[in-house]
C-alpha cells in the first residue's frame, strides 16, 4: 500500500500533463477565475433617458438618476423608439422614459408615472440599473410629496416598510456567491481528469488487462485523497481569504470532516471512472465539458426547487452536488456538519458505491507489480 502511495506521486512527478492537472490547475484557476468578478457588484450600468416632459420635476428626477451609483446615463434621446434601438444594439441595458404630463400630475396631487424598461438579455445589469433608478424615484417622490403636502395636507406613509438584509454573503458580491462553489468543481475535475489520465497511460504502458491488489488501490486512493485535501486547504484556507470571500468560521473539525467526505467521494468516483479509459488523452476529450452542467446541477445558480425532481435525484449521483451544498454551507454560511447530514450521508454512500465499483474494476486478487 505504501509503495502504491509513493508510486502515484512518482508517476505525477514523471508526467507533466498529470502534474499540470493535479497540482498546477488549482493554482492557475485560483488566480484566473475570480479575476472575471473583481468588482463583485454591478455599478454604472449604461442607461438612456427620454424626457418628453421637460419640467422642473422631470429635470429633478434626471439629476437624481445621474447621481445613482448603479446607473450611468449614457445618452439623452428624443424618442422612445430610439431608446429601444440603443438597447437592441447593446449600447444600454435600461431606459427611463418620462412621459409628457409627469410634472403636471405631481402638481395636481396625483401620481406622476414614468416608464422603466430593462434589457431582457442582461437581466442582472438591467435589474441593478432599475434598482438604482428606483432609489432616485423614491427621492423625487419625497420631494414631490412635500410639494403636494402644501396643497393637500401631509400624505399617509405606507403602512409597512420592507428592509432587505442579506445573510452570509452580506455584500451580495457576484464572485463571492459563485466562486466558493466553482472551487469544488475545479477540485473535482482536477482529481477526475488527473487520475483518469494516469490510469489511461498506465494501461497503455502495462497492458489493457492491468489489475491491482486491494492494498495497491487503497494506496493510490490515499495518495489521491491527500492531493484532494491539499487542494481543499488551498482554496478554503488561502484563496477564499485572499479574495475576501465570506468565511463564516464553522468549527474547523466540521470543515475538515466535510472536506474528507467530499474528497473521498470524488476520489472513489474518479477511480471508478478512470477504470474505463485505455488511452491517455481520452478522459480530457470526454470529461472536460461536464464542469458547467455539474456546477448548474449543484443548485447555486439555479435553485433545486425550480429543477425537475427527477434531475435533482439524478444529480445526487455526482459528488459535486452534495459537496458544493455542504462546503458552501460550512464555509460561507457557518453551519455545522449536522446541518448538512443528508449531503454528508449522500457523500458517504457515493464513496461506498464508487469504491465498490472501483474495487470490482481494478482489483484482481492476485499479486501484480505496482502500477504506473
Amino acid at each position, binding site marked *: 500500500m505504501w509503495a502504491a502511495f509513493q508510486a502515484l506521486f512518482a508517476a505525477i512527478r514523471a508526467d507533466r500533463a498529470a502534474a499540470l492537472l493535479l497540482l498546477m490547475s488549482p493554482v492557475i484557476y485560483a488566480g484566473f477565475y475570480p479575476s472575471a468578478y*473583481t468588482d463583485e457588484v454591478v455599478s454604472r450600468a449604461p442607461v438612456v433617458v427620454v424626457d418628453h416632459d421637460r419640467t422642473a420635476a422631470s429635470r429633478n428626477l434626471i439629476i437624481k438618476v445621474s447621481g445613482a451609483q448603479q446607473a450611468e446615463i449614457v445618452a439623452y434621446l428624443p424618442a422612445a423608439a430610439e431608446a429601444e434601438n440603443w438597447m437592441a444594439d447593446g449600447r444600454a441595458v435600461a431606459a427611463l422614459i418620462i412621459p409628457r404630463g409627469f410634472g403636471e400630475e405631481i402638481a395636481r396631487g396625483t401620481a406622476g*408615472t414614468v416608464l422603466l424598461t430593462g434589457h431582457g438579455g442582461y437581466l442582472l445589469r438591467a435589474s441593478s440599473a432599475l434598482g438604482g433608478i428606483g432609489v432616485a424615484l423614491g427621492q423625487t*417622490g419625497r420631494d414631490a410629496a412635500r410639494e403636494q403636502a402644501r396643497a393637500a395636507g401631509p400624505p399617509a406613509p*405606507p403602512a409597512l416598510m420592507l428592509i432587505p438584509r442579506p445573510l452570509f454573503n452580506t455584500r451580495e458580491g457576484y464572485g463571492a456567491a459563485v466562486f466558493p462553489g466553482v472551487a469544488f468543481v475545479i477540485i473535482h475535475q482536477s482529481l477526475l481528469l488527473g487520475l483518469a489520465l494516469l490510469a489511461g497511460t498506465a494501461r497503455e504502458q502495462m497492458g489493457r488487462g492491468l489489475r491491482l491488489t486491494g492494498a495497491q488501490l487503497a494506496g493510490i486512493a490515499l495518495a489521491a485523497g491527500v492531493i484532494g485535501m491539499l487542494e481543499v486547504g488551498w482554496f478554503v484556507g488561502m484563496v477564499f481569504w485572499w479574495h475576501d470571500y465570506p468565511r463564516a468560521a464553522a468549527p474547523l473539525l466540521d470543515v475538515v470532516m466535510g472536506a474528507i467526505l467530499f474528497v473521498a467521494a470524488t476520489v472513489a468516483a474518479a477511480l471508478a471512472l478512470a477504470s474505463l479509459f485505455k488511452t491517455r488523452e481520452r478522459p480530457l476529450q470526454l470529461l472536460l465539458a461536464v464542469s458547467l452542467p455539474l456546477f448548474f446541477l449543484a443548485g447555486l445558480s439555479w435553485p433545486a426547487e425550480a429543477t425537475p425532481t427527477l434531475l435533482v435525484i439524478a444529480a445526487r449521483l455526482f459528488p459535486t452536488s452534495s459537496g458544493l451544498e455542504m462546503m458552501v454551507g460550512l464555509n460561507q454560511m457557518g453551519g455545522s456538519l449536522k446541518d448538512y447530514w443528508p449531503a454528508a450521508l449522500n457523500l458517504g454512500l457515493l464513496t461506498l458505491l464508487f469504491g465498490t465499483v472501483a474495487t470490482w474494476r481494478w482489483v484482481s486478487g492476485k499479486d501484480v507489480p505496482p502500477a504506473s
Partner: protein
Amino acid sequence: MTERTGFRASFARECRFIARSPWDLAVVTWIPLLLCGMIAWQLSGGVIRELPVLLVAQDESAISRDLAIRIEAAPGLRLAGTVPDLASAQQLIRSHRAHAALLVPRETAERTLQGQAPVTLYFNASYPAAAAAIQREFGAVIDAANARQATDRIAPVLPQGSVRPAPVRAVIAIAWNAPASQEFQLVSLLHPALLHLIFMLAVVSAFGRELRDGSIGPWAPNLAGLAGKAAPYLAVFTGWAMLAIFWLAGVRGWHFAGSPLVLLTGYAMMYLAYLGVTLLMVGGTRTLSQSLSMTGLYAGASFAFAGAIFPLEQASAFARIWGNALPYTHFARLLARTWVAPGSGTALAGPILAMLAIALVTAIPGTLLYLRAARDPGSWGRR
C-alpha cells in the same frame, strides 16, 4: 492530387474514422446531446417558483396573518413555516430548509398607523438566483399589503385626502423578455458555451491524434485537406446550433427578435475562430494532451469571462483582455443583439468581424505550424 480531391478525400477519411471510433463518435453525437439536454431540462421551469420561506411572527396580529396568506399566494414563494424567533429561522436557512425569513416585529400593527413600520427580510445571499427571486416577490407582497392597509384600516382614521397614491410611480417592463425569464437568458447562452467547448475538444482531438499516431504521414495534408478534415465537425456542430435554437425558439416558444440566419452565421464564425485556435495550439505544442489541457483553460471558463451575466467592463484589465480574446464573448454580444433584441446592421457586424479577426489571426500561423509539423516525422508521437 488536386485541391478538390484533397478536400473530399480528407472529408471522407475523417467521417470513416469517426464512424469506427465509438468515443470520437460520442463527442459529436450523444455527449453534446446529453449535456445540452441536461441544461435545457433543468431550466425548463422558466421562472423560479415555490421557494420555501419562513415567517417570524413576533406580532400576532391580523397583519402577520395577512402577510402569511399573501406569501402563500405569491407564485414564487411557499410558506415553509412560522417560527418564534430569528435564531431558529437562521438555523433553518443554514440547513437549506428555507431561503429567507420575514421578521414582523412586536407592535407592528400599532406602528402601521404612524406608517413605515419596519419588517425585515433576511435572505440567503449565498444562493444569488433564489435571493433575487425572493426579493422581487416580497417587494410585491409588501406593496399589496400596503395597498390593503391604506384603504381598509388607515383611511377611516386619518384626515380625508391624506391617503393617496405615492406621488411618483414607475411602470416597469423587461424588453424582449417580458417574464424576465432566466431560462431564456441562461439557456440561450449556456448551449453555445457548451457547444464551442465540445467542438474544440473534438477538433483538437482530430488534429492532435494525427500527430500523436503518426497517421499524418500517409495522410499528408495540404490546405484543402485540413479544411476537409475540419468540415464534418463544422457541419455537425452547426447542426447542434440549429437544434439548440429550435429548442428555445420553436419548442419553448421564446421570441426570436432578430434574424436566426445572422445568429447561425455567428455560430459558424465562432466555430471557425475556435478552429483557428485549435490549429495554433496543436501546431504549436504538437502534443495532444497538452492541447486538450490548454483547451480546458481557454474554452472551459468562457461563460465567466464573456460578460454575458456579469459585466466584463467592470472586471480586471486582465479579464477584459482575456474575455475579448475569446470568440464566445463576441458571440454572446451577437446573441443579445440578434436573438433577444433586433439590433442594427453595424451592431451585428462588430461581433462577427471580431470573431473573423480571431479566426484569421490564429488560423494563419496555426495552419503554417501544423503543416510544418506534418512534414517533420521527428515531432510525431509525442504524448
